[in-house]
């Protein structure tokens, strides 16, 4: 049994090279039940980091611990606790949302009756009821993203990894998703999210990490980041741009 002091995610000395270093000795900790926003300019290494955590990439070096499980030594056990949502919804055009959620429940070996109850709840929550038995091929980007999110939540993960989850969502849908995420965090789920919509990070995240060139250049609450940037009272956008500019100037 895990106690609440066990981090939801712990990365130590994480390294991943492609043509150039994408992640460069990254240390990062996300606490249990925390909403953590990972920010960074394009190519900073955010998606690579999250793909490593989700078990979609193996790092060249470093350690990945998910809820106390060594994710590199036992990826299957770690994957049971994780859900991954990317900006491109991972769904099947020819399946209906109901069938998609049945498929995902099956992949995570959730008993049929449990999966079904959760699926109905999520479909209702996300306003997908009228379309539950329609093929996803006709869905808008926002609806597809909602189906993907329902798929991520149907197996009740304890660590939710979201890579730009609000891309393509209209204001109403984005609010629905934000409320759903906040509710999950209140229920003890840890969320790690990347976004370019800094207002979302500012409003939802308890702590924010700023990544640049594969390294964490700043981390803390919004107030702590403001202090680090020397921009008291500024918006997260100003703070973020200042921190990245300072890092680039130093490089």
């Amino acid at each position: 049994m895990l106690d609440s002091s066990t981090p939801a995610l712990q990365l130590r000395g994480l390294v991943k090279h492609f043509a150039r270093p994408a992640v460069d000795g990254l240390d990062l900790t996300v606490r249990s039940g925390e909403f953590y926003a990972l920010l960074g300019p394009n190519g900073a290494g955010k998606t690579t980091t999250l793909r490593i955590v989700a078990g979609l990439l193996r790092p060249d070096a470093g350690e990945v611990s998910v809820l106390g499980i060594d994710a590199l030594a036992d990826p299957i056990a770690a994957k049971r606790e994780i859900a991954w949502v990317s900006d491109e919804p991972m769904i099947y055009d020819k399946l209906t949302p109901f069938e998609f959620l049945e498929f995902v429940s099956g992949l995570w070996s959730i008993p049929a009756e449990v999966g079904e109850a959760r699926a109905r709840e999520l479909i209702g929550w996300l306003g997908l009821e009228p379309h539950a038995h329609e093929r996803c091929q006709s869905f808008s980007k926002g609806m597809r993203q909602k189906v993907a999110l329902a798929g991520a939540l149907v197996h009740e993960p304890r660590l939710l990894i979201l890579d730009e989850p609000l891309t393509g969502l209209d204001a109403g849908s984005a609010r629905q998703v934000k409320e759903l995420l906040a509710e999950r965090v209140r229920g003890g789920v840890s969320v790690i999210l990347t976004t370019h919509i800094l207002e979302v990070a500012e409003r939802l995240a308890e702590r924010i990490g700023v990544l640049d060139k594969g390294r964490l250049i700043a981390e803390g609450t919004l107030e702590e980041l403001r202090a680090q940037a020397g921009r008291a009272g500024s918006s997260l956008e100003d703070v973020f741009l200042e921190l990245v500019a300072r890092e680039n100037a130093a490089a």
Partner: protein
Amino acid sequence: MSQPATLAWFGRHELRLFWRDWISMMTGGKRGREPILAGVAVVFAVLIHALAYFLVVPYARAGIVPDKATLVVLTGGGLLACSLMLSQAMESVTRAFYARSDLDLILSSPASARRVFAVRMIAIALATTLLTTVLAGPFINVLAFTDGPRWLAGYGVLLAMGALSTAFAIALTIAMFRGLGPKRTRFISQVVSAVVGAGFVIGAQGAAILSTGKFSRLEIFRSEDVIAGAPGLASPLWWPARAAMGEVVTLAALLGLGLGLLAVVIAGLSANFGDHVVAASGEVYERKRERRRERFRPASVKRVLRRKEWALLRRDPWLMSQTLMQILYLAPPALLLWRNFGDDLSGFLIVVPIIVMASGQLAGGLAWLAVSGEDAPDLVASAPVPERAVLAAKIEAVIGAVAVVIAPLVLALAFAAPRIAAVAALGVAVSAASGTMIQIWFRAQAKRSTFHRRQTSSRIATVAEALSSILWAGTAALLAAGSWFAAAMAPIVLLILAGTWAIRPRRAPGT
């Protein structure tokens, strides 16, 4: 330099896109392979000319005259080429409707959409002609070399037939579009193009089986009954054959008819082509409700994966039509099986290699869809299921689908010739397994919609898949015939498979 947005300007743009697309397709997108491609093209040209030489020279030496027997053979060959051209043109026209690519940009620009589509229709006609010219050209060259330059008129006939096929394909597709709507047109047009492409070959083969009991489709064109029953020498049916033999006036008439009809179709239909493209984009993704199911069905992970693969395949008529070609070729052996039922067992031997080869090709195609064409690879990879279990489930789904298609034929064979059926079943199993494994070794993520170009991701996989299914077919045929050569051939196929496995792309950990 041509003025922007003119017919010539769009023509240059299309030509550049076509050339880069073709080079990319032939080189698998790898830079620096152009010299190898040129070398392969030269070798191919030499080989196909050599083949044409050996096939044509015996007739050319005897002297080719425009008698009825010659006209029947030439017309038969022309009909075969025409069915291939029509199939290719229909496929291209349908794709022009439904593949958006740059059409949003072009249609939203102030340039004349009519010019764009006119150029695209001309490009389809040229590409259609070119494809058949690659196959027919060597025969024309050899005939011109051995029997005189009059045969070069064959190129003119190919151009006329290409124009005629494209005009017909455009008119037919647009008529279907107007009559049946965009959604049905996509499916029906794909099926019709597959059936037309294979139809003439299979029809000729079927007629040969029914009339002579033999498998060769050439038999029908040489049969005395067909020659005797063919119309007189003055019939317009022989015009294309006469034109190919160098009759200048007939050639001019054919070219006038083909190019004129294409010009009329382009002038009449290119103005509204854009409207159809816009309509296609709106209706392809129309809402489609599935039968309402109230409960989740309990199932193992493997079963869940198998069920998903089968549902995706069943619900995609376009992909079904793409695999239909391979199943269509099973029709002649089925016919032979039916005709010879209860007769001499040797007639069944010919069925074995065809079933075995078709199953290898079918399995390869389905394996590509299941493995490389996975729509949500990250979702499956992030699930707590070992990769081996996912692959095993996908293999089971592929083998299950192949079994559904092939089993009825093998069962029918079992009633007439149990030993031959057992050999066929064994051949089907190893051929399907080989095709599937090759696709797994060479898997590379791709969109399912690019199925018709799956060979571009790996030439080696394509060649290996073809070789293994052909050689397993040969091995099964030898085994069915009781020949010991089968024991020598099987290790050769296994060696090829081992070699293919050895040169498979290594997947770096974490990719």
